[in-house]
């Protein structure tokens, strides 16, 4: 009998762990007792949180309460070890061991889910890079030194199915890869061997296990097994692993521990929770584990396993969104499981727990709901396969006595208490009750009388989920009364807000479009969505629900952009996005089709098709878009001036992408706007002569040609190393309008290309990272092929009997193309970023919820040199009609400096912003506005305080900037106290008071007059509110 004893060092109080090998097989012996691993994979993620949540960052009292509940439940059914991705700090490993007798595996992911090196977040690790190898080993060394003397560690583990990471494209589980990446695997496994040997240089008291995905690359592992004591494998072969044990024994000569195995508890075939079949699968798996253990005559190398997993994680699908939804979408197929249907996915990532979880209490504590497997495993774990006289037959006889059905009643009872089982559920009820008091001074339109009004509004969400293949949600809003006296009167519940309180400047020329601010019904559909799965396609229909774009799927010209508008669509009651996407599967997996009245805000009713094919490192994308009508035919298509639907168009694009190492090259062409071929347009060019009508311009009349419908674009992005950079060039004909760019390139730059046609443009930027600091200069040069038109007054020369017809700036309603955001510009940007935790990206819209750095901040300066003016934008009159402005502010340079930061000095959660800049009105007014302001948000336990000040800035709605209406001073403040439930640490039922104050002068909306030049007016508002979420 040979024994590989892992002797605890003298100063360590840990157990003595031996790995015994003899003719009867392999087994673990701990403190002199045979030890088969009866483990679970454990993570603790309250509903509404995701991978970023860490129990170990919570107060000790909560951790102890959670451990008492969770470890106590484990202890009761005989679990003796846990594997935790978010490895507990040493003191908690010791606590768990000493209090509950449960061992931990300390698992170093070895770059599986990306690493932060020198301040740079690297999502995909190159194991062949000597610098990266050295970095990973140094990080491992630090961990080993920190943990090696901690009592309660059963073994070290390396990675988590890193072999799959060589093929998969994201952190989410995908179909198990079948193709091999031998050279990359060689590099990775040689590093694992080096890592195992490194561990042993510092700690010889515990064995080292590899965590591999199934048996992939077993041949390569065999060549790189030095230092490895145990072959850990995440095993998803279904109820039986078959020859797995024998194969490992033959090729690796190592004992086996299942570092993950199990079955999910959602039946993709029936669309219902199925704890019974989960338990049946686990029963068979454990029987096989026991049968292959030491001394049973089979492979005899099974050391036990870790059931995946202890309790559900509600964040697994999507990972950053729908965190409070128990998603039933199956994301990968495995034919050997009970619910497999050929050609369809059946693995439900959010349902792997042998325990369900319930909504968390305010501090993050939640209760479990035990499934059938939990009750059954108690009896499974009562058997000691190493006990004298236990044979394969004994084991089989024992398991005959364990039938999963017998353990179903208590689980069913718990489920019944939690869930009525109806597919139709009331998923949210939000009641908003507010009282608003407002007043102004005498010289304001509001007057100096206090006014009182109130809001009563309810949002009711109903979900229907008859099976995992169909999910539908309908959100209704009922507003009994909306306060009419608010300083900011345009908001969702105010169905018919008052006319804009200003006198509109004279709009010049062109036809007008009627604008509706919404229906008059107090009951409205607020949101709706449908998600349906079919063997041949997935359908996602959305009504005022945001969606991702196809920017990262080859859509180089952004025909289908991301459509998350947050509060803006509510403020303006926009019916967008509104449409559906069909994503093909099986033979049609390269195809997608989007269609609808407004697939993004500002789109015409349209249909967009995409074909995207990956051919190794090269991808090809072809798209076509056909507008079927003008958005003007739809109600609520134009509710604010910043989103004016363009003319009906037709667009076709063809693009090729190529991966070149850590770099990406995209080249494409576009054909768009053919409906406007033949349309006449005028243009004016400066001349030193008298010119047309003595204007100083020569004028020309031309027509849109076919060449004006063509465009091309190329973009090169390199993310290798600490100096990531990109270069981009594009030329687009006069009517070759593409879509808006909502994607992020490398970092949070704000300078982006305009999607509009009629321009030649070049962009380039480099992000230099020094530790936690990033310096990122960025530049843009763009010039329209045909510049904007000046205003040339029409005239009649009686002497020559000659008529000079007027020339005006073009506009979107009357001309085939315009010069707006594609105006001649030379712009520079300097972005500075400090972010010590780049894994939680700083430049995300919900940074306040996710950023986990003690302090992170950015500073962004943008300067735009604009040597020429632009054409006319569209404004909305106080009559509710959209009409073109008669011109534009003169050419002028503009600049903006913006800063954002967040900090987490427990128990506070802080974030803020500041800005300073000089910019122009959207309309025609030439007054240049120099404005500045700042905002602050403080979260402290159940309190939330936000405030914002602005000086000499426009008001909150688009029309303020359209008509250049500014306030000398604006202040907003809101403080509230929250009750349950919590989402991202913020409780959703809140009581609060909101205040607003602003001063007014001659440039302000609602300021009347004063006989005293320089005097000002004031307005203020106080609102008390209760927002109850159930």
């Amino acid at each position: 009998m040979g024994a590989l004893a892992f002797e605890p060092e003298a100063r360590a109080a840990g157990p003595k762990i031996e790995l015994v090998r003899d003719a009867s097989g392999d087994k673990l012996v701990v403190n002199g007792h045979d030890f088969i691993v009866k483990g679970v994979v454990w993570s603790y993620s309250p509903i509404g949180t995701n991978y970023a949540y860490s129990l170990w960052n919570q107060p000790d009292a909560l951790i102890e309460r959670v451990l008492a509940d969770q470890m106590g439940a484990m202890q009761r059914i005989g679990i003796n070890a846990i594997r935790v991705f978010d490895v507990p700090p040493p003191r908690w490993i010791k606590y768990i061991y000493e209090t509950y007798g449960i061992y931990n595996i300390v698992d170093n992911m070895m770059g599986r889910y990306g690493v932060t090196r020198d301040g740079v977040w690297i999502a995909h690790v190159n194991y062949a890079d000597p610098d990266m190898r050295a970095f990973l080993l140094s990080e491992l060394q630090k961990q080993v030194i920190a943990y090696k003397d901690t009592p309660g560690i059963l073994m070290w583990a390396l990675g988590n199915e890193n072999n799959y990471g060589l093929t998969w494209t994201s952190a989410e589980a995908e179909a198990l890869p079948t193709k091999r990446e031998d050279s990359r695997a060689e590099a990775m496994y040689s590093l694992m061997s080096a890592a195992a040997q490194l561990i042993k240089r510092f700690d010889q008291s515990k064995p080292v296990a590899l965590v591999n995905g199934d048996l992939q690359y077993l041949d390569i592992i065999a060549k790189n097994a030095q230092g490895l004591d145990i072959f850990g494998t995440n095993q998803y072969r279904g109820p039986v692993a078959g020859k797995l044990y024998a194969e490992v024994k033959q090729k690796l000569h190592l004992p086996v521990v299942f570092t993950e195995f199990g079955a999910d508890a959602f039946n993709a075939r029936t669309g219902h929770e199925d704890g019974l079949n989960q338990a049946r699968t686990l029963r068979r798996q454990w029987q096989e584990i026991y049968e292959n253990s030491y001394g049973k005559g089979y492979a005899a190398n099974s050391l036990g396993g870790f059931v995946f997993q202890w309790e559900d994680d509600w964040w697994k699908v999507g990972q950053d969104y729908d965190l409070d939804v128990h998603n039933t979408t199956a994301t990968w197929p495995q034919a050997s499981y009970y619910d497999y249907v050929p050609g369809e996915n059946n693995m439900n990532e959010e349902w792997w727990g042998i325990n369900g979880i319930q909504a968390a209490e305010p501090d993050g504590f939640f209760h479990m709901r035990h499934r059938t497997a939990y009750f059954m495993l108690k009896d499974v774990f009562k058997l000691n396969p190493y006990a004298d006289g236990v044979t394969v037959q004994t084991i089989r006889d024992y398991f005959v006595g364990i039938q999963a059905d017998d353990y179903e009643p208590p689980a069913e009872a718990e489920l019944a208490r939690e869930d009525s089982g109806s597919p139709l559920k009331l998923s949210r009820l939000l009641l908003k009750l507010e009282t608003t008091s407002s007043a102004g001074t005498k010289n304001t339109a509001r007057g100096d009388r206090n006014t009182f009004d109130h809001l009563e509004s309810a949002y009711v969400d109903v979900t229907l989920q008859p099976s995992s293949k169909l999910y539908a949600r309908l959100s209704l809003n009922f507003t009994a009364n909306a306060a009419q006296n608010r300083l900011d009167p345009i908001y969702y519940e105010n169905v018919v807000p008052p006319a804009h309180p200003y006198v509109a400047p004279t709009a010049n020329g062109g036809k007008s479009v009627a604008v509706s601010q919404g229906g008059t019904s107090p009951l409205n559909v607020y949101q709706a969505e449908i998600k349906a799965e079919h063997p041949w396609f997935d359908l996602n229909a959305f009504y005022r629900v945001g969606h991702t774009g196809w920017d990262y799927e080859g859509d180089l010209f952004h025909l289908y952009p991301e459509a998350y508008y947050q509060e803006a669509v509510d403020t303006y009651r926009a019916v967008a996005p509104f449409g559906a996407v069909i994503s093909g599967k099986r033979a049609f997996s390269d195809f997608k089709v989007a269609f609808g009245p407004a697939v993004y805000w500002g789109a015409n009713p349209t249909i967009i098709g995409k074909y995207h094919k990956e051919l190794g490192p090269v991808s090809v994308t072809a798209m076509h878009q056909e507008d079927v009508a003008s958005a003007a035919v739809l109600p609520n298509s134009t509710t604010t001036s910043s989103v004016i639907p363009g003319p009906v168009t037709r667009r076709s694009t063809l693009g090729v992408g190529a991966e070149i190492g850590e770099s990406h090259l995209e080249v494409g062409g576009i054909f768009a706007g053919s409906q406007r071929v033949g349309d006449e347009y005028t243009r004016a060019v400066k001349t030193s002569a008298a010119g047309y009508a003595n204007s100083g311009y020569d004028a020309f009349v031309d027509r849109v040609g076919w060449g004006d419908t063509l465009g091309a674009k190329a973009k090169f992005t390199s993310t290798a190393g600490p100096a990531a950079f990109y270069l981009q060039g594009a030329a687009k004909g006069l009517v070759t309008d593409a879509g808006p760019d909502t994607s992020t390139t490398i970092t949070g730059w704000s300078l982006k290309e305009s999607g509009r046609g009629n321009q030649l443009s070049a962009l380039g930027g480099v992000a230099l990272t020094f530790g936690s600091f990033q310096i990122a200069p960025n530049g843009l040069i763009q010039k329209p092929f045909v510049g904007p038109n000046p205003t040339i007054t029409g005239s009649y020369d009686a002497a020559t009997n000659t008529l000079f017809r007027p020339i005006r700036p073009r506009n979107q309603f009357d001309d085939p193309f315009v010069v707006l955001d594609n105006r001649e510009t030379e712009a520079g940007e300097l972005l500075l970023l400090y972010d010590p935790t780049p894994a939680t990206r700083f430049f995300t819209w919900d940074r306040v919820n996710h950023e986990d750095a003690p302090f992170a901040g950015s500073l962004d300066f943008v300067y735009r040199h604009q040597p020429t003016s632009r054409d006319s934008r569209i404004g909305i009159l106080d009559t509710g009609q959209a009409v073109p402005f008669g011109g534009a502010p003169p050419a002028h340079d503009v600049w903006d400096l913006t800063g954002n930061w967040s900090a987490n000095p427990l128990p506070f959660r802080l974030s803020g912003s500041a800005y300073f800049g000089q910019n122009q009105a959207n309309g025609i007014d030439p007054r240049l506005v120099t404005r500045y302001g700042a905002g602050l948000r403080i979260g402290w336990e159940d309190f939330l305080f936000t405030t914002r000040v602005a000086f000499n800035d426009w008001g909150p709605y688009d029309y303020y900037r359209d008509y250049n209406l500014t306030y000398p001073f604006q202040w907003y403040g809101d403080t509230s106290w929250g009750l349950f439930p919590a989402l991202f640490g913020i409780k959703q039922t809140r009581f609060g008071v909101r205040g607003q104050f602003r001063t007014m002068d001659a440039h302000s909306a609602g300021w009347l007059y004063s006989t005293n030049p320089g005097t000002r007016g004031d307005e203020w508002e106080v609102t008390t509110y209760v927002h109850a979420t159930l």
Partner: protein
Amino acid sequence: MFTQLCETVLSVRPSRLRAAAFVMLVAIASCCAGCGDKGERLDGVDLTNLSFQLYASDMGVYPSTSVLGDPNNPFVHVSADALNNGTPAQPALKWTISATAPAPVAFYSWATALATAPNGENQYYTATKLHAIYTDQLAAPADIPTVKQMAIAAYTAVLTYFPEDYGRNADGTLAFDFATPSLQAIIALGGAAPQGWELVTGSDGTPRAVRI
């Protein structure tokens, strides 16, 4: 030259920079492809030889907008704002033309103003210009009877659609009502007073159109 440029790009090392150079090449090529011609130079329209052409018999008579489809109308591309709006220092184009241009030119300017901004003023002066074309025989002889009927119809439209409208002085004060001279002109042209309208003489001896 383009071939040389391509060869230069392909020779760039390392490959990352070569790809970047390729991006620039596409941008430059696209720039060249996007350059268009200058189109047709726009000059003033010589109205010396502009004559009245009968395009439609309801031209210049509200609510018809047929004048906007008349290829002989030089004001089609002139915006309603430019025709109608002005200041004392820079009068609206219709006034400048009305003061100096021959009647056919002025007719097209007023009729276009009427079609894009209907009001009593535009209707009345359109009628006077039709009246002048008839009186001065500025249309083809065969069309003269029709022009007369158009003038009567245009004056009648003032009474029918804009009976309350007044002419104003440059300072904005009321000058005269359009109804009275319109009814006088209808009668002078041999037309019948529209039903409900009558020309009466006031105590001061001045005639006045009234509704009875």
